[in-house]
């Protein structure tokens, strides 16, 4: 009898073992959920694509990363939100879209979830400026995904050869641009192409020179004296830029610097390929530092980047939040940086292994500590402001209008949007 009982027990145990070995491990309560994450085409998107299978393996949640161009992403997102079609559960959101998306309720407000999981998220490790990638007033519609620092990229070899120091002030920047313009080389290169390229580039210089897009009353102040002065300076710098710079966007600007045709540029820390050994002709000579500031001003640096938000119409809110928590964890952040992403955590920016491998992280940390995520106002009217500024800058750098007249016209264009 005992033998039969023992045999039956063994059989039950063997059956349990078989079932356990066949059934997938339940790694998350959301295992089996499908998430679609629409991401802008940028260096960090490749890192996210590489991390997706790891997330899937660890949690059992299926993550599909769809990469789209900037304009396409924006149009697709708006169409999805307005049509309530829930084509994607997660969206990468540009810092300047924050309030537009928040006011329309397109994305889930993460504030309560962040509060609920504060300890797990280790919020003190995320620098304050990073939150601007998705905040609007009390709402937090996106979690920091990638932080970009506005930096000055320069050709170290050219500076050494000319015997001049790396500029710390705007005046020194102009002087260095002039000094380095020789032997067929341009001292500096900027974006001159009408629209977002010119507008965004000029706004770097505006911040460096102490200007703002909005006045203290929250209304546009495009034609303020300091902005007019900055535009005059910006146009003046084109004397030391390549001939075609008035038509340049980011690609041509970076190419000009990377090929060694131009000695300086103000750039986002998004790519930084020119710092990679052997990647481009200027590799080895290129370096980055914080952007110069007007003499007498406290250092404030341009900050931008992307957040990750959950579509308010997504049926998979829990799984999406789990992904955000997973991606922002210190362990994954380290992997993320190794794969080409840019960190959001202080501990990642100061990680000894990473700093040894990527010395530029110390510059990014400095920018993050003194970063201004609002120098490009994160308001609903931003795209129209950017377009008006982009036209004004282009008109001035191509010599068609004076800085005062161009910015007066831009101000007249955008002022009615605030009435």
């Amino acid at each position, binding site marked *: 009898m005992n033998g039969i009982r023992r045999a039956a027990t063994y059989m039950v145990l063997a059956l349990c073992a078989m079932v356990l070995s066949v059934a997938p491990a339940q790694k998350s309560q959301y295992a089996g959920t499908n998430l679609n994450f629409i991401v802008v085409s940028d260096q960090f998107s490749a890192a996210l694509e590489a991390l997706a299978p790891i997330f899937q393996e660890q949690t059992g949640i299926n993550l599909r990363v769809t990469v789209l161009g900037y304009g396409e992403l924006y149009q697709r997102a708006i169409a999805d939100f307005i049509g309530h079609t829930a084509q994607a559960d997660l969206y990468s959101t540009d810092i300047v879209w924050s309030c537009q998306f928040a006011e329309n309720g397109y994305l889930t407000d993460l504030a309560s979830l962040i509060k609920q999981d504060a300890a797990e998220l280790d919020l003190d490790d995320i620098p304050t400026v990073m939150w601007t990638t998705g905040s609007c007033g009390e709402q937090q519609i996106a979690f920091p995904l990638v932080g970009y620092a506005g930096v000055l990229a320069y050709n170290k070899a050219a500076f050494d050869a000319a015997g001049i120091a790396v500029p710390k002030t705007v005046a020194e920047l102009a002087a260095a641009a002039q000094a380095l313009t020789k032997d067929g080389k341009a001292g500096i290169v900027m974006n001159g192409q009408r629209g977002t390229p010119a507008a965004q580039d000029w706004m770097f210089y505006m911040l460096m020179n102490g200007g703002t897009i909005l006045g203290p009353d929250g209304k546009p102040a495009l034609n303020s004296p300091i902005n007019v002065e900055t535009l005059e300076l910006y146009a003046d710098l084109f004397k030391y830029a390549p001939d075609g710079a008035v038509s340049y966007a980011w690609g041509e600007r970076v190419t000009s610097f990377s090929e060694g045709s131009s000695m300086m540029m103000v750039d986002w820390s998004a790519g930084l390929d020119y710092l990679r050994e052997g990647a481009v002709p200027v590799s080895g000579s290129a370096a980055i530092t914080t952007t110069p500031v007007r003499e007498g001003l406290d250092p404030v640096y341009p900050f931008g980047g992307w957040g990750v938000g959950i579509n308010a119409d997504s049926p998979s809110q829990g799984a999406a939040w789990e992904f955000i928590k997973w991606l922002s964890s210190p362990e994954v952040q380290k992997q993320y940086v190794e794969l080409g992403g840019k960190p959001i955590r202080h501990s990642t920016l100061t990680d000894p292994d990473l700093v040894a491998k990527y010395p530029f992280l110390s510059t990014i940390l400095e920018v993050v500590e003194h970063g201004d995520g609002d120098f490009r106002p994160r308001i609903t009217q931003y795209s129209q402001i950017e377009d008006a500024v982009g036209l004004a800058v*282009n008109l001035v750098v191509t010599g068609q209008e004076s800085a005062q007249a161009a910015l007066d016209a831009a101000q007249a264009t955008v002022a009615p949007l605030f009435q």
Partner: protein
Amino acid sequence: MISRSTTDLVSPRGGAPERRRRFRLGRRAGLAFWVAPALLLVGVFAIYPVAYSVYISFFKYKLTDPTKSQTFVGFGNYLSALADPSFVVAVRNSLAFVVGAVGVELLFGLALAVLLNRELPGMALVRSILIAPLTLTPLVVALVWGALYNADFGPVSYYLKQLGFQLGRGPVGEPSLALASLVVIDVWQWTPLMALLLFTGLRSQPLELHDAAQIDGASNWQRFLHVSLPLLRPTILVALVIRTMDALKLFDSVFAITGGGPGRATEVVNYYIFKVGLTYFDIGYAAAMSNLLLIIIVVLSALYLRVLRTPGSAS
């Protein structure tokens, strides 16, 4: 002997007229059955969008407006467009582009068509090569030309400078050259289409008329001017209408190369509508401008018909 009453002969079920009527009805029903899918497609994909565009153009309607309100403004959007300096400049630039691009394409296309029409060796190969630019995506063409035009490392700028042309900030960086540079791209890509259309027109002309003119002592030039060209008018009309409609919708090269600059030099209607509609999401205003563009196209097409109508033709 078979005998049938008159009534029988007229109709077993209503008579011959009734049969004919039924036949016609049946025929019409059959035709309607076969035409219905096409009509449905046109209705869904052409008529409905245009009708909706007209409807929405009477509203102040911004997709990203948090209040999601649609306020009826009547012809307000149309009046705003006509008073909008950017739209007026864009229309002017678009028309200048059409005149430049389509005009040059017509001249070059005609010359190429005449050349293709000659029985010269290798013409079949030339015709095949001519199709190549037509197969390329306009955006890809624009990106390639953008690199070619680059003032600092583009080969076009380099060789033009070597030849002594003062290009300053490059072909697309100078306000006086930018639109013309975009015309060159359009001419490069679409002249072959014009040439092939006109070539088919030349091929379809009756040889007897040319032979008669030759017997009467007409020179080659006279035959071309007084025989070929008048007979080519319907083909020229079709080619001009197609190319004008297309050129008025210029977008890719502006989007990829100039962004509408320098200044407003290359801001064209289609690009401006794209910006207002899909960047600002001001749908009502964008719809009004689209409808104005439609009116411009219809007016230009009517103008072509009036000028190029073959004398004596019903159209």
